[in-house]
Every structure is written in structure tokens, then in C-alpha cells.
């Protein structure tokens, strides 16, 4: 009997690892090995045409002490991340509205998600031009509403360029958040609500007591996506502002990319990548702490 259980157990373990293997392999190839490569590179003077030399902390010193663009882009990236909750909040409201039994909710859901399938480069082009000073729609609306009397060059102004980029990025990812949250909402057993209704809990109470706790995993997922977005937004910044004017829209990733490919300082870029990685991992870890338990788990007993 006991041995039987053991055998079952080992069979199960084999199965589990067999199931994990392919994904792990891919991540090893395209995430972990490159990261290690970057780690090594960041302590070297590396250059495709020359023999490699040991650099010690040379690049880190340059980056952390002298390179204010690095700090600027780190700050921007954090701001972009901090803007994730706005998007998630909006998405949550929409999800809750769509989750009701109103007619045509399917249509609404569809429309809200429509923005996500759009190629980010295209999103960049579209918004670059919605924000345009002369022919842009936003300026047109603002002017016809009489709020302003001449076009605002959103993407050229130090103060407005970055918010504009953030708006575009939220626009793009909103539908995605909503879908995740909606899946979460739909997975909350109706019985809980019924029970709560019997206890005579109001809508708000129900939200606080049931919906929100049950949604935590989905919300966490949204946060992770938001964090990822704050560097996958590369294409967006790249198309809309190229990081300008004077680096106010520079993100870590755009700066890393530029360092590597226009300044051909791969070693320096590698150092920044490492810092970037550590930064994000810490954040993810914190988020995970905040939302308790491992990502995406719906807690048992429901």
C-alpha cells in the first residue's frame, strides 16, 4: 500500500517535471542564458572587434555615479509603472460594469479589448498623430471645446510628452487588464454572493468582502503585466518620441537599446540590463508579498 503511494508519487513528480521541461528550456535559452551573458559582459570591456578585458565595476560606476540620463530613465520607468494602477483601476471598473447582466455586454467587452491586438508600432503611429499639434484630433477637440486657442505640441513639450506616452500605453493595455479581471470575476463562485446576499450585505460590502479578495490573483497578474509593459512599451516610446525631448520620455529599455545599438556600448548596456533586472525583480517580489501567496492562485476552500 505504502509503496504503491510512493510509486504513484514518483510517477507524479516525473510527470510534473516532464510538463515543466519545455517551458523551462525555452526560458533558459532566451531569458536566463542571455541574462547571465549580460551579467558577465557588465564586468568587461567588450566589443566585437577587440579582445575582451576585465572592467571591474567601471560600467556600474559610470552608470550609478555620473550618468544622469540613466537615473532619469529609471525614474521615468518607475513613473510608468506607478501609472499601472490607474489603468488597472479603470479596467476593474469596466470589468465590473461588463460583468453585470446588462444587454450587449459582449459587445462592450469586445470593443474595449480591441485596442490590445493592435501592433504597438501602429499604436505609436496612431497616437503620435492624435497628439499632433496641427492635424491631431485631441488638439482639434480641445480647441473646438474652446479649452485652448492654439494647438499644444504634446509630444514636444517637456511637461506633457511623458503623460501623453502614458495615456497611449494605458489605452493599449486597458482591454487586456479588463479581460484578466473579467476571467477572475467570472471564476468567483456565484454561491458566495448568494450567501452574502442572504447575510444582507450591500453591493459595496460584497465587493470588499468577496470580490476584491477573490480578485487578488488576477489583480496581481495585472500588476505583473503592467510592470512588464513598462519596458515592453519600448516600441511606443521609440515611435512616438525616441525618448526626447531631452530624455524626458526616456525609459530604461529605450536607453539600454540606444546604448547598445547607436552608441555600440554593449558592455555598458549589459550593466544597465542587470540593474534593470534587479530593480524589476525586487518590485515583483514586493508585489507578490503585498498580494500574498504565489501568483495567480485562487485560494482554496471556495
Amino acid at each position, binding site marked *: 500500500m505504502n509503496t504503491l503511494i510512493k510509486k504513484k508519487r514518483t510517477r507524479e513528480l516525473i510527470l510534473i517535471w516532464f510538463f515543466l521541461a519545455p517551458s523551462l528550456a525555452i526560458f533558459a535559452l532566451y531569458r536566463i542564458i542571455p541574462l547571465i551573458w549580460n551579467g558577465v559582459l557588465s564586468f568587461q*570591456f567588450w566589443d*566585437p572587434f*577587440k579582445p575582451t578585458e576585465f572592467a571591474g565595476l567601471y560600467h556600474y560606476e559610470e552608470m550609478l555615479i555620473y550618468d544622469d540620463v540613466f537615473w532619469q530613465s529609471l525614474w521615468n520607468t518607475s513613473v510608468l509603472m506607478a501609472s499601472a494602477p490607474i489603468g488597472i483601476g479603470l479596467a476593474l471598473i469596466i470589468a465590473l460594469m461588463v460583468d453585470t447582466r446588462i444587454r450587449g455586454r459582449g459587445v462592450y467587452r469586445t470593443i474595449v479589448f480591441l485596442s490590445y491586438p493592435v501592433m504597438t508600432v501602429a499604436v505609436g503611429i496612431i497616437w503620435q498623430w492624435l497628439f499632433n499639434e496641427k492635424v491631431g484630433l485631441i488638439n482639434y477637440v480641445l480647441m473646438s471645446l474652446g479649452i485652448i486657442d492654439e494647438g499644444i505640441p504634446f509630444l514636444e513639450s517637456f511637461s506633457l510628452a511623458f503623460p501623453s506616452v502614458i495615456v497611449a500605453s494605458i489605452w493599449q493595455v486597458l482591454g487586456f487588464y479588463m479581460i484578466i479581471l473579467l476571467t477572475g470575476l467570472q471564476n468567483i463562485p456565484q454561491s458566495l454572493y448568494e450567501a452574502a446576499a442572504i447575510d444582507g450585505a450591500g453591493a459595496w460590502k460584497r465587493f470588499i468582502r468577496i470580490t476584491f479578495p477573490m480578485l487578488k490573483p488576477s489583480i496581481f497578474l495585472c500588476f505583473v503585466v503592467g510592470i512588464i509593459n513598462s519596458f515592453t512599451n519600448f516600441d511606443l516610446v521609440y515611435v512616438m518620441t525616441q525618448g526626447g*525631448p*531631452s530624455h524626458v520620455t526616456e525609459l530604461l529599455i529605450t536607453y539600454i537599446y540606444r546604448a547598445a545599438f*547607436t*552608441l555600440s556600448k554593449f558592455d555598458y548596456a549589459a550593466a544597465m540590463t542587470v540593474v534593470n533586472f534587479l530593480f524589476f525583480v525586487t518590485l515583483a517580489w514586493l508585489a507578490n508579498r503585498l498580494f500574498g501567496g504565489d501568483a495567480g492562485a485562487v485560494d482554496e476552500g471556495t
Partner: protein
Amino acid sequence: MRSTITTTVAAVAFAVAAVLGTSPVQAEKKISFLAWNIPHFKAGAEKWMKQFKAKYPDVTIEWLDKKGSEWSTYYQTQVVAGTAPDIVDVQGGLWLEYASKGGLLDLTPYLKADQASYTSELYPEFLSSWVYEGKNYGVPFYISKTLLFYNQAMFKKAGLSGPPKTFDDLLAYAGKLSGGEKSGFMTLNFDWLYWSLMAMNGVEMFTPDLKKAAFNTPAAVAAVEKLAAATKSGAINKISWTGRWVKPNNAFAAGTIGMLQAHSPAFMWMKAKGPWMNKDTVGVAQMPGNWSTPNSHALLISKSTKYPKIAWEFAKMATSGGGAYDLGSSLNVLTGSKVANKKLMAYFEKNIPDAVSVMKTQTEHLDKLVGNWPVAKDAAVKEAFYPELQNALLGRKSAKEALDAAEKKVNRVLSRR
């Protein structure tokens, strides 16, 4: 009996097959050419390849084309992987980094060897803008440099005749031309295209030995202050310091800009957008002091190439005589070859009379070229300098602060390895 027959047949068949299988195939030499966003030149490129194939039947040319913003990503990834394209068409200062690190082939001996048959045909001034530490790494592919376009109608309205002759004229004119929707002056700003504005104030970017920054002078501060003030007042359009290509050219084509500093390709582009533009409605001149920044393209050869000689032959075909003419006539640009340009000017006279005056400016005052310093860290210097200049021009910092900060950064870039 039958079995023997079958076996013999089989044997024969096998033998034949074997012989056919091992029939000698001649080794193909492959040369790859990486162009810089000229996809609409495909037809011309095929013509070149045919011509080249005729001379070198065992060589095949691989034609690659990448848009400017992805060009360096692509090239550098290929370099790292050891599959660098043999011939590359490069713009601006990007090549200096590669040259300084020894990634490019020194063409000086080749140029010497073909002095009579080829080199003599090229403009020395454009050829020399591809020299780094005494070695010539590139041959001019197609050339362009900045000039001043001005809107005749707006000039008339403002009671102005003819282009400004000095920096202060320029700003004064800009002031007169601006108002409401309209602004007086605009410039392209990528690479160093705006540098003529500094040069006409006697500002030097580097010390003669190119080891230190030399731009932080009272003259420079004064100039930047004037420019910033003009920008604030709207005489100079803000887009000058932020837009790249589409916005400034669109603005001029829309007829709301008095003067635009741009290089010759801009004219064709704007003409397509603004049909009103022709030799009567658009004035063409050199910037005050005849200063201009080249924005030329050159062909360079990767050090890693297996067939430097062949690559060189192809580069020569593409940059001289008929080859150059094909390029110029389909891109509507001038080339580095005097011979080809003669024919090209005739072609423009016939097909695009409006562009003739623009093209003329491109080969004048070649002694006044600025913004093409052979500094290995060109790109990094740009990164360090321009954002600070932007800060000053857009009124985020005072000119002095900005230039001080820029000087510190530039010197740091130059001092670091």
C-alpha cells in the same frame, strides 16, 4: 538470368546516378550589400547586379535594406555574429565608432591604386569627410548638405527680398515673417544639421586636436540665448528642436514656415506634399556665411569581408559613372562623382526643373562644411550635447547652465574609453 539483368541495370543506374551526383558545381562567391532605407531603388539595384554579374559571373550579390532607425541594430547584430554585410551604405557619423574599433576596411590603398580610373572622378571634399585618423574608410554614395529654403510669398508679404546674409539678419527676418499660424524659421536637427547656426557665430565644437570640447564660449552663449529668445517669441518654430523629418517638412510644405534649413532630399519630399512648391514660389540659398552640414551617405566595406577586391569593385560601380547616375536619377539626389553629376544635372533640367537650383547648392562652398568631425565617439557626443542644447533652446535652462553641463558631459565622453 533475369535477376542478373536487373542487377546489372540497377548497377548501371546506380553508377550513372553516382556520376551525375558528383558532377562538379562551381563555387559561388557571395557579397552582401546593406542599404540604408532605399527600398524603392530595387529596380536600379537589380540593374547593378546584372551588370556586375556580367563582369563577375561567379559572384552573387545579396541585397539587404534596413530603415535608418533599425540599420545599426541589424548591422551590429550581424557583426557580433560574424556575418557582417560586406558593403554597407551608412549615413552620418555612425561609421566612426566602427572605424575607430577596426571594424572597417581601410580603402586608402584602393583609392590610390585606382586614382586615375576612379578616385579622380570624386569630389575630394566629400571623399575626405570619410577619413578617420588619416585612413579613408568610405567613398561617397550619394551626397546632400543643408541649405535654406524660403517661402517667396511670405517673403513678399513681409516686404523682404532675398535670403538673410548674417545670423542676425536670419533672426530679424524670422521675426518679421512670424505671426499667428506662421513662424519665421525652422531647421532640421538630427545629426548636426543645425550646426551651421553655431558655425556662423564662430563657435567651434572641439579643440583642433578633437580631444576636448571648445563650444562653451561667450559667443556661443550669446548665440544660444538669441536662438532661445527667438524660439520663445515664435519667430523660430519649436519643432526645429524636437521634430525629426516629417513634422518640419510638413510644416514648410503647408506654407506656414518662412525659412527652412534642410538638405536637398527634403525638397522632393515637400514637393510631393505641397504641390504649390516650384522654383518661383520657393527660394533657395546657402545659409548665412555659406555654412552647411553634410548629410551624405557613403559605401564602406566591413573588415570581415572574404572578398575585399570584389566588394571594392562593386562599390566603385555603384559610386561612379553609370552606376552613380542610375542611383541619382531614381533617388533624385546628386552623387559623389563629378562625372555622374554632370549627367544628373542635365536629367534634372529635363525632368525636375524646379529642383535644379536646389541641386546646384549641393556642390557649392564645399570648403564651408561643418558638423562632420572625425570623432570616434560622435554618437555619444551627440547624446551628451544635444539634450542640453534642447534644454536651453526650449527655455528649460539658461544658455550658460546648459552649455556648462554640456561641456562637462562632452569632455567626460571624450575622456572615457
